[in-house]
């Protein structure tokens, strides 16, 4: 019997300022002993083939930056992700909901999923996080660990 494990998928571009936050969080998670029963994946963008990847996960936690001028940089949010496909969404950068939708259509299953996001200041070229986003890293890490270990212990 295969024991399904939680899967964290963090994404963003490491050379686009705060957009690197997913990778920073993924690096921290990999170094945390509490994440031993969890798989961590960092990618530059979500692509359709991840639909296959998530079918063996007990739960998926997406970690991403959110660029929205209306939000205060550094604010962390957790949202449930549901399978969906927006007819207007036709870029190669498929959304998390589309990944679930593809898994459902192709493999007949999709795990429960949540998205952990942090409001960012800038995604302009650069290798450093802004102060506000940098200060949110520990909260992001703890949030993801809580979401994963809750699942693992369930």
């Amino acid at each position, binding site marked *: 019997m295969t024991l399904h494990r939680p899967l964290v998928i963090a994404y963003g*571009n490491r050379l686009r300022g705060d957009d690197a936050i997913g990778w920073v969080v993924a690096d921290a998670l990999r170094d945390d002993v509490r994440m031993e029963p969890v798989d961590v994946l960092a*990618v530059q*963008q979500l*692509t359709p083939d991840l639909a296959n990847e998530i079918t063996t996960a007990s739960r998926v936690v997406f970690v991403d930056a959110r660029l929205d001028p209306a939000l205060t940089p550094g604010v962390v949010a957790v949202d449930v992700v549901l399978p969906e496909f927006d007819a207007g969404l036709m870029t*190669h950068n*498929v959304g998390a909901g589309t990944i679930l939708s593809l898994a459902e*259509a192709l493999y007949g299953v999709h795990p429960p999923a949540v998205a952990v996001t942090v409001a960012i200041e800038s995604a302009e*070229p650069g290798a450093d996080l802004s102060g506000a986003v940098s200060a949110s890293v520990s909260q992001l890490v703890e949030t993801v660990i809580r979401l994963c270990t809750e699942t693992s212990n369930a």
Partner: protein
Amino acid sequence: MAREITIDPVTRIEGHARIRISLGDAGQVADAQFQVTQFRGFEKICQGRPLAEMPSLMARICGICPVSHLIASAKACDDILAVKPPKVGEDLRALMNLAQIVQSNALSLFHLASPDLLFGFDADPAMRNIVGVAKSNPQLAMDGIYLRKFGQHAIELLGGKRIHPAWIVPGGVESALTAEKRDEIRAMIPEAYAAADRALVWYKSNLLNWAEEAETFGAFPSAFMSLVDADGNVAHYDGRLRVVDHDGTLLADFDAHDYADYIGEYTDEASFLKPTYFKPRGIENGLYRVGTLARAIVAERFGTPRADVELDAFRSRFGRYPSSSFHYHQTRLFDILYGIERMEMYLDDPEILATRVASHAEVNRNVGIGVAEAPRGTLIHHYVVDDDGIVQTANLIIATGHNAAAMNASVLQVARHFVRGERIEEGMLNRVEAVIRCYDPCLSCSTHAMGQMPLHISLVGYDGEVLDEVRR
């Protein structure tokens, strides 16, 4: 009265771009241009960085084809070190590059282009997307996913991670391939062949459905450029750059170090994309194409059995020098098939497990140039360093830059054929977008997905008045 149609942004390509179509007084298409609306600052970021960092830094340019940047960058570094990697070091680099050729071409064909090809260019966008493909032809969608997974997994096994592996270094690679990992990659090959074969059967059996598009999607005479090996066959890792004309006339055959004698760059005020031209013909007449179609045209053969069978059939049907960019799609499948075959050959060579995988040296030159064939075409990295190996300047010429002029010409051709006056029709304008997707332009070097990217088309009069507008 002059008018303009703008498609902004263009969907299902790598990155952010728009298409601007200018109409003349009688409503006929007068001009068309593909414009990149995002800024790439990577050449600037490189300045001041130590040479040893360059391959892994350059890999972060792109999440889809990072290995190509790794290869071109490492080769430029080899040049500066004046060092040649051991044979197995070069073979392992080539193996990883082929894995990426397979997965990246699969992303383009199966996930980005197949919705148009499966449902038609006039189909409802609500269905004409990857989820629609998954529901309508799940085998096709799963084959695409498998080929992506195959390539990604091979990259991960070789380099330790699937995205931005730091395994390729100046002088070779960081570690040898183990027998266990070799066997794991090898075990995936039969299903990769099966997926590629099914896709080719599906594609060829549907070709007649796209006859009009095949005749109008960038069907014009032009030069083509790609790397070739010593026998004139397809090469992705190394070789000489060859340029042939539309009728096969050899225009140039040169070492990558001489690229500046043959390839010029110029800026376009309306776009961040820096186009190139074939210098001997000047900017006006210097259009050429690179990528999978160019490789199939420039090279004598692939040099592998399965891909050569497909290439022969393709040439029997469309001639030795087909001119339509629509055929990028089919030649992308050839590249996938060739990639699998070459990977199998490398893996079956016992020498691939040799353990001396890198050569070591200090900075011996101040200039280095590296070239490789990326999935979308020829990629050139050119660095100048000081005596301590600190990068002073970097020039990157990516496939999308080589193809920029051809994309403009293709958009103009399609617009003239399918766009009529002031009416904006879904299928008509999607064809204008679709011709760009034939080239699979990679602009994602810097993008961040900020939610939905709606297609916004506006028809604007010369005085700025919006005459018609469509959003989806």
